[in-house]
């Protein structure tokens, strides 16, 4: 099965080519079948590989396809690495990818760009698979930039809308800022280790001392890449704007898969990070700050997708916190559970928007419970999962992260718990405002309310089940489970884990869980009291807000800040360089050469009197003089 790994990315690529080249001529149902079918096929192969690995097949296999780039000593094969980490990501990507493809056949059914949409989605899956399958950093980079391209195309999917186009462009450019860091990191890896294949690099890195400066530099550069792709401070602002894309895109790319690429990258390079404690600290701090910062913004948003977007940023921060404290398994675990419940929530939101005929403002929703029961029920499961309700998937992964954070640094833990509370609050705020109480939209909308078609509800149900039981793969020892995921991923993280021994007493773990659960319960209570019992509504557009609230509502004016600090100065510098430096100074110097020549010749030409007699006279005198100097 492992030998068939090349099929996994190839299938979506074939899907992309067929749909992309002939999409206009195919019927919508055929496009849907091809688009979803290839991903399902890839999922099948991935599942086979996963099972083989779980049964103890060779833990790390490299499959060379062809030699891609070589120059001198640098040689980069186009090759894949199959190991537990990549196979787990394969499952997440193809599995959730398939569900979202299926969902899209319903959601995008009436869109004129139906086939284009599926072509882009297939292309995205292809690049995402390259990202996790590559056996060296450059193949990862190929996928990395490729998913960025697909993200650009899909955010700007409705390309007639200037705001959407701007969002797409912003996403691409912000990602590119990170990508530059990543690229330089790759080059530094090459310069340091003479190779960029994971195997060679990690083998050599193991022998280096902890805190080697070059490792710190490498890991920081790679982390810059992760900041861009995984929307961490300060490069996160593209992700909320990216919600301009169709909702399945938000679910697939901007929640479940692409944005977790940064986590994958760091988990993949775990040994490098473990050996650079300074970088780890940076990662943890940036992660926890992002988690908190985005959560506060999430508290005040009224667009259903924006809330989820900020929640995604916040959860990604959580994952970086996990990485920063050395809980690699925890981070990957959270990637997985987050993929389940966030995809579920986004798809649920899509179903809500679908039912509301395109309305995204939760102030205009309410009481949808009775109109769209399946969506409501699955959305509730998702909300409980993200809040970390005991037994749901999010509970286990979050708990694992918080336990590690506590052990590492109590402040990190405290902020983590606070963030978790906020997350619970804004998610339940969202849930209550959307589904509870009475409908607040127009009559027309109310009349039109309907549950989504099967193609959309089936993925919801599947994801709901996964969100419910997905945590079972990682039940901690303290609750009497044995952590399957940790065992499965052990070959990848072993080298790091023996360097980061940690043990909390069972009592402490019980206390930590208790605290987390009580904070969650409190948050649910407050949300319930505010939005169900008191039936409060967020302030309407144009209402005067209190300064702090206003600041949060306006997302701390970060976009405006970037506009003022980066975009405008860049334009100003460009204009200045063009009009003044280039046209006046640099070109002026060149032209002044011409002026000098003109000026000098203007003087010299006076000697040309045009009087032939004078010329002849000068000639004769000169000859005589020359003769004299020669003869005497």
């Amino acid at each position, binding site marked *: 099965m492992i030998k068939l790994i090349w099929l996994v990315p190839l299938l979506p690529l074939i899907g992309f080519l067929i749909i992309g080249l002939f999409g206009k001529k195919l019927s919508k149902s055929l496009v849907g079948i091809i688009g979803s079918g290839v991903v399902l096929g890839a999922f099948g192969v991935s599942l086979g590989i996963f099972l083989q690995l779980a049964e103890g097949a060779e833990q790390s296999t490299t499959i060379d396809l*062809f*030699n*891609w*780039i*070589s*120059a*001198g*000593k*640098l040689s980069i094969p186009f090759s894949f690495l199959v190991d537990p980490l990549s196979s787990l990501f394969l499952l997440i990507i193809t599995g959730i990818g398939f569900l979202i493809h299926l969902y899209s056949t319903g959601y995008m059914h009436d869109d004129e760009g139906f086939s284009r949409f599926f072509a882009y989605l297939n292309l995205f899956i292809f690049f995402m698979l390259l990202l996790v399958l590559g056996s060296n950093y*450059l193949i990862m*980079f*190929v996928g*990395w*930039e*490729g998913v960025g*391209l697909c993200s*650009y195309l899909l955010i*700007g999917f409705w*390309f*007639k*809308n*200037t705001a959407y*186009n*701007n969002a797409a*462009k912003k996403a*691409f*450019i912000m990602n*590119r*800022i990170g*990508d*530059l860091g990543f*690229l*330089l990191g790759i*080059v*530094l890896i*090459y*310069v340091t280790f003479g190779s960029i294949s994971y195997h060679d690099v990690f083998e050599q890195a193991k022998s280096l001392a902890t805190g080697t400066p070059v490792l710190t530099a490498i890991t920081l550069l790679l982390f810059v890449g992760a900041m861009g792709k995984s929307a961490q401070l300060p490069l996160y602002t593209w992700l909320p704007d990216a919600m301009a894309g169709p909702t399945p895109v938000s679910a697939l790319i901007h929640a479940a898969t692409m944005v977790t690429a940064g986590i994958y990258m760091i988990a993949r390079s775990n040994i490098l990070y473990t050996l650079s404690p300074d970088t780890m600290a940076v990662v943890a701090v940036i992660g926890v700050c992002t988690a908190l910062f985005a959560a506060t913004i999430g508290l005040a948003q009224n667009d259903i997708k924006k809330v989820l977007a900020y929640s995604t940023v916040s959860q990604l921060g959580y994952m970086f916190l996990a990485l920063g404290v050395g809980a690699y398994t925890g981070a990957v675990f959270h990637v997985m559970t987050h993929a389940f419940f966030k995809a579920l929530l986004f798809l649920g939101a899509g179903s809500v928007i679908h039912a509301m005929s395109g309305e995204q403002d939760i102030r205009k929703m309410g009481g949808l419970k009775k109109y769209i029961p399946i969506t409501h029920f699955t959305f509730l499961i998702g909300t409980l999962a993200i809040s970390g309700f005991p037994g749901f998937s999010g509970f286990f992964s979050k708990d694992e992260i918080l336990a590690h954070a506590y052990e590492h640094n109590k402040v990190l833990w405290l902020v983590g718990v606070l963030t978790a509370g906020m997350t619970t609050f804004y998610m339940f705020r969202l849930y209550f405002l959307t589904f509870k109480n009475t409908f607040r939209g127009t009559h027309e909308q109310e009349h039109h309310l309907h549950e989504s078609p099967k193609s959309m509800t089936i993925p919801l149900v599947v994801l709901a089940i996964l969100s419910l039981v997905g945590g079972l793969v990682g039940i901690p020892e303290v609750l009497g489970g044995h952590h399957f995921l940790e065992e499965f991923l052990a070959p990848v993280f072993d080298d790091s884990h023996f360097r980061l021994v940690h043990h909390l007493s069972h009592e402490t773990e019980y206390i930590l869980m208790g605290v987390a659960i009580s904070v969650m319960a409190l948050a649910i209570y407050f949300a319930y009291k505010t939005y169900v019992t008191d039936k409060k509504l967020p302030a309407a557009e144009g209402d005067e807000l209190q300064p702090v609230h206003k600041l949060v509502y306006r997302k701390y004016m970060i976009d405006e800040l970037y506009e003022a600090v980066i975009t405008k100065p*860049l*334009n100003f*510098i*460009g*204009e200045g*360089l*063009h009009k003044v*430096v*280039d046209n006046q100074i*640099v*070109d002026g*110097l*060149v032209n002044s050469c*011409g002026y000098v020549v003109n000026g000098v010749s203007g003087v010299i030409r006076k000697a040309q009197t045009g009087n032939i007699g004078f010329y002849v006279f000068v000639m004769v005198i000169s000859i005589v003089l020359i003769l004299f100097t020669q003869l005497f």
Partner: protein
Amino acid sequence: MITLLLIFFPLVAALMLLMVKGEQVKKVALAAAIIEFVISIAAVVQFQHNADTQFEFNKPWIQSLGISFHVGMDGISLLLVLLTAFLVPIIILTSFKKTYKNPTAFYSLILAMQFALVGVFVSLDGFLFYVFWELALIPIYFICLLWGAEDRARITFKFFVYTLAGSLLMLAGFIYLYQHTANHTFDIAEMYAAGQSLDIVHQGYVFWAIFMAFAIKMPVFPFHTWQPDTYTTSPTQGTMLLSGIMLKMGTYGVIRWLLPVAPLGVEHWAHLAITLAVIGIVYTSCIAIVQKDFKRLIAYSSIAHVGLIAAGILAGNTQGVQGAMIQMISHGVNVVGLFFIVDMIQSRLGTRDLSVLGGIRNLNPQFAVLFLIILLGSVALPLTNGFVGEFLLINGVYQYNAWLAAFAGLTVILGAVYMLRSYQSIMLGETNAVTAVFPPLEGYEKAVLFIICAAIIVFGVYPKPLLEISEPAVVKLVDNFRTAIGK
């Protein structure tokens, strides 16, 4: 012999073309260019993958001065000959619906240009190189002067004088080296030996004399000011010749002549030269961001790309030089594609002002996709041809100096900024009064764009055939360079 054929076939074709009149001339010119391409493919097929100079031809020319007609190709030359032979038919094809006055002269000049360009890339004699170098200036001067846009007389004059001034310095440098050769000859090997026998100070003089010519031709900041004006005013085919092929004369010159002839000079002055090139990258990218004229924007972006190539070469390591080789090819292909898109838009809508365009994607999705692919090649997305070169170049510069590489890498970001901005203003959004009618693509236009897009993707996914051609020669050249500077 195949080298001679490659050089003189375009010249013969150009002369024969003078006898053809009327519209037929395009087809004949295209046929000739395609034949030249076939010959170059034949050369590639026969080429042995090693570092030796092959297909050599050496006959004394002006014996008393030690000048011989010495031509031949190693991998480095062959790649550029291939690029020339590949682009010229495309460039001719792009003009198929154009009605230039006096087409006979126009196409003859293009083929004459090809003759000189191939000559530059295969010359193994300093004097011969110089002759071809100057010869290449003549046809392009007339192309720009006779078929250019407004204000062309002033601009082409500046271009001509500026590049000529640079060439003169190169000639001085060559004559200086000639004086130091053992037998007073311009033969390349002897000139290498002569240059390397000089001390570091004199190699520095030689470096600057020769580098100025190349720096102006490429152009490298701050010797670039002739370029945006010239690119903007030239007829599209002239711009393509200039940017697609002619500027590679400069980068090729640095590889073929500068590195071997003055290794110590390069070593000593590379820091300054690379810094200038890198400043140029960021500087011109910033300027490109605020351009309204799409053609001028691409002109500036071209300086940025070439700056990176120059920096990579001067870094003097295998990755840098190999990156430069592959990027020369990629840049040639991509920039021709971009200028063609400018031309298509302008000939349809009568403007190329970004602020008035928009929404063309609604009218012609196919065109939008093709444009996007070329754009992605230009911003060096992985799996397009631009990425391979850019990665190797940044790698090469990084090995020289990490900070310069980081600064040069800003092109990754700034390139995306200006290219996406222009794509958005041209293609996306709603159509407006200017773009209300966009006639569909003609067959020849599709052909050109398909070929270019195919090249972008194929050599992005599988650059090995190109890399293999130049690799042995580059490795040898870099080894010699590094031995000479004692590293």
